[in-house]
C-alpha cells in the first residue's frame, strides 16, 4: 500500500546556447546591451587576473593559486546579481566575484602571495575572506543570513562552493539551518565537474547537485554556469525571494574547470585532454561575445580595447603588489585578540628580539 506523499522536480535554466544564440526571450536586465557588456568586462578582467596570477606563481612571486578559468560566468554572474549590502562568503576560486564587488587586484594578489592584508580589503568590508577549508563557510552564511533576519534588513548572504563541497556535512548542516528558518541565503555550487582529481560522478550518486536542496526543504535550481545571463538571472531571482522572506535557494551552476585545480596540481595525471578540449567549446566568454556581436553591440576594436585595459590594470596591480612592503612581524601578534594578554606580550617581545 504505497501512496505518494511528496513530489519534487529540478529545473535547469539557460538563455544563451554555447554559440551565443538566444534560446528564447532574455530576462529584463539582459535587454540592455550595456549591462551585458559590463558582465563581459567582468569575465575578461577575471581571466586576465587569473593569467597574471598563474604567471606570477610560476616565477615564484606568488603562492599556490586557484584559477577560475572557464568558470567566470558563475562568479561574475552571481556577483552582478548581488547588492553591495549583501554579504559574499566565497570559497577560494571566486576572485572574479570579489573584483566585481570592489576588492582590488592588488588585494587578491596580496592574499595569494601570502599576506593577510589581502583579506583586509578596502571595499565590501562585510564580505568574508577566502575560505580554504572546503564548505566551512557555509554555516557562516546561515549565521550572516540569520543576523539579517533578526535585524529585519533586506539583505542576503551569498555563499559559493564547489561540487566537492556538496559532500561535506558542514554544507548539509548549513542548508538545514537555512531551510528551517527560511533564511535569506543563496548557496551557489560552482559545479566545475572536478574536486581536484575526483570527477563529479565519483563525488555523489545524486543525479544533480541542485537536489541537495530537497534534503533541506529549500528551493533548488540548476543553471547553465557558462551562461552568465542565466547565472545572474537565477541568483537575482533567488535573492529577491530571500529578501522578501521566501527563504533560501541552492543553485547548481554547471560549468567546467578548464585549468588545473591549482598551480600545485597537474590535471593531466587524472583527466583526458579530449574532455578538456570538448569543454573549451562551451566556455562562457565567446558565448556572450558572440551574442553581443550579433546584436551589433560589440566590435573587434572594443574587444581589443578591453583586453588592453585589462592588461594595463593587471600590470598596475602586479607592480603595486610587488611593491607592497612586507608586514612587520609584530602584526602576527596584534590581531590574535583585541587586546594582547600578558603571556602574548612576553612572546611578542621574544619574537621581536628582546627576549624578557
Amino acid at each position, binding site marked *: 500500500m504505497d501512496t505518494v506523499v511528496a513530489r519534487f522536480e529540478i529545473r535547469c535554466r539557460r538563455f544563451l546556447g554555447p554559440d551565443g544564440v538566444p534560446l528564447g526571450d532574455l530576462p529584463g536586465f539582459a535587454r540592455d546591451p550595456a549591462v551585458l557588456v559590463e558582465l563581459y568586462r567582468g569575465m575578461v578582467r577575471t581571466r586576465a587576473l587569473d593569467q597574471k596570477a598563474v604567471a606570477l606563481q610560476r616565477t615564484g612571486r606568488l603562492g599556490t593559486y586557484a584559477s577560475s578559468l572557464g568558470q567566470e560566468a558563475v562568479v561574475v554572474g552571481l556577483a552582478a546579481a548581488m547588492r553591495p549590502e549583501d554579504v559574499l562568503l566565497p570559497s577560494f576560486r571566486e576572485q572574479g566575484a570579489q573584483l566585481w564587488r570592489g576588492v582590488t587586484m592588488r588585494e587578491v594578489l596580496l592574499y595569494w602571495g601570502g599576506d593577510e592584508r589581502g583579506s583586509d580589503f578596502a571595499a565590501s568590508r562585510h564580505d568574508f575572506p577566502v575560505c580554504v577549508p572546503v564548505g566551512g563557510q557555509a554555516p557562516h552564511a546561515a549565521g550572516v543570513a540569520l543576523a539579517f533576519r533578526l535585524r529585519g534588513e533586506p539583505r542576503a548572504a551569498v555563499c559559493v562552493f564547489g561540487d566537492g563541497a556538496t559532500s561535506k556535512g558542514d554544507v548539509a*548542516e548549513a542548508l*538545514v539551518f537555512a531551510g528551517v528558518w527560511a533564511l535569506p541565503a543563496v548557496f551557489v555550487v560552482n559545479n566545475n565537474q572536478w574536486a581536484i582529481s575526483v570527477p563529479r560522478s565519483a563525488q555523489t550518486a545524486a543525479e544533480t547537485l541542485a537536489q541537495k536542496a530537497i534534503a533541506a526543504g529549500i528551493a533548488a535550481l540548476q543553471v547553465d554556469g557558462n551562461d552568465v545571463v542565466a547565472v545572474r538571472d537565477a541568483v537575482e531571482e533567488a535573492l529577491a525571494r530571500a529578501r522578501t522572506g521566501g527563504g533560501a535557494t541552492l543553485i547548481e551552476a554547471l560549468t567546467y574547470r578548464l585549468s588545473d585545480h591549482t598551480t600545485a596540481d597537474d590535471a593531466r595525471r587524472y583527466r583526458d585532454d579530449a574532455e578538456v578540449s570538448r569543454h573549451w567549446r562551451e566556455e562562457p566568454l565567446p558565448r556572450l561575445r558572440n551574442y553581443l556581436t550579433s546584436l551589433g553591440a560589440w566590435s573587434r576594436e572594443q574587444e581589443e580595447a578591453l583586453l588592453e585595459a585589462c592588461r594595463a590594470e593587471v600590470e598596475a596591480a602586479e607592480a603595486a603588489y610587488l611593491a607592497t612592503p612586507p608586514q612587520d612581524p609584530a602584526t602576527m601578534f596584534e590581531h590574535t585578540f583585541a587586546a594582547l594578554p600578558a603571556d602574548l606580550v612576553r612572546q611578542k617581545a621574544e619574537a621581536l628580539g628582546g627576549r624578557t
Partner: protein
Amino acid sequence: MTERNLVQAVNAALARAMAEDPSVLVIGEDVGADGGVFRATEGLLARFGKDRVIDTPLAEVGIAGLAVGLAAQGFRPVAEIQFTGFLYATLDQVLNHAARLRTRTRGRLTCPLVIRSPSGGGVRAPEHHSESPEAIFAHVPGLRVVVPSSPARAFGLLLAAIRDPDPVLFLEPTRLYRATREELDDDTPPLPLDRAFVLREGTDATLVAWGGMVPEALAAADALARDGVSCEVIDLATLKPLDEETILASVARTGRLVIVQEAPLTAGYGAEVAARVAERGLMSLRAPIRRVAGWDTVMPLPRLERDYLPNAMRIAAALRETMAFA
C-alpha cells in the same frame, strides 16, 4: 541578594547580559522551551522571546558555524553545546574559523562568541557526557578557555566572556551545578578573564586546580591542614590566557606544586602549568611537580567513574609525597 547555585548563576549571567545588550543571543539544542537540559537557559525564552533564544536543529558544526556568522555580523551569540562529548565536532569551526577570523582579516571581521558546555564527570552520566576537553581547546590560538568552579565565579566570568570581543569557550562543571549556593546579586560586576583565584592561602605547598577538581583540592588542603601542612589552593578559572604570575608567586613561597586535572593525564592542561613552572619557577622548587589526573584511559561508564576521577584522597596522597621531599 539571591542565593544561587552554579547553574542558576549561569542563568542569571545570561539574563543580565541579554538585558544589557540586545546583541546577545542564546542559541543551541533545547535552550528554548525546555530551558536547557540542565535548566541553564530556563526562563530566557519567556523573557527575551524567540528571536533571542533560538532552538537549533541537532547539528553541532552548524551551531558553531552559525555563531561565527552571527558574530561577524555584530551579534554576540552564546551557543550551548549540550554536553562536552559533542564539542569535539565543533573544533574545526572554533579553530579554523572563530579563533582566527580577526587575525585572518587583520581585525576587519571579529568573532565575539561564547560556547558554553557542561563539562566533566562525577554525576554518573551516560557515555560521552563526562568529558574534560579543556586542554584541546586551550591549544587554539585566539581562543579563551574559562572553567568556573563556584556560582560567583561562574556569574562574573560568564558575564566577562560574553562582553569579551573574542571567542571564549566556557566549560561548566556539571558536578558543581547544584553543589553549593552563594549569595549573588544581579549587578555583581564581571570578573577578569586573565586571572587565577587564590582560594586558600598557604605556605607549604601550592595546589593548582580548576572546575570540578577545585572542591577536591580544597578538601585535600583541609586534610593536610590536619597534619599541620599549609596548602595554598589556586583556582585557575581562566586557563587561557594563563595567569602564570599568580602561580609563580605562590610556588616561589611554597616551593612545592601539585596540579590537579580531571582530564586524562597526557597532554592535559596540567602539563602546561607544570611546564611554565619548570621554566620560570624551577629554581624555587623543593620537590618534583606532581600531577594528579584522570588516567590515560577512556572515561568509564558510571560504575567505574569513581575509580577514574581524581579525588581529595589521591590529591592528599600526592601532597604528602611532595612534602616528603627534603
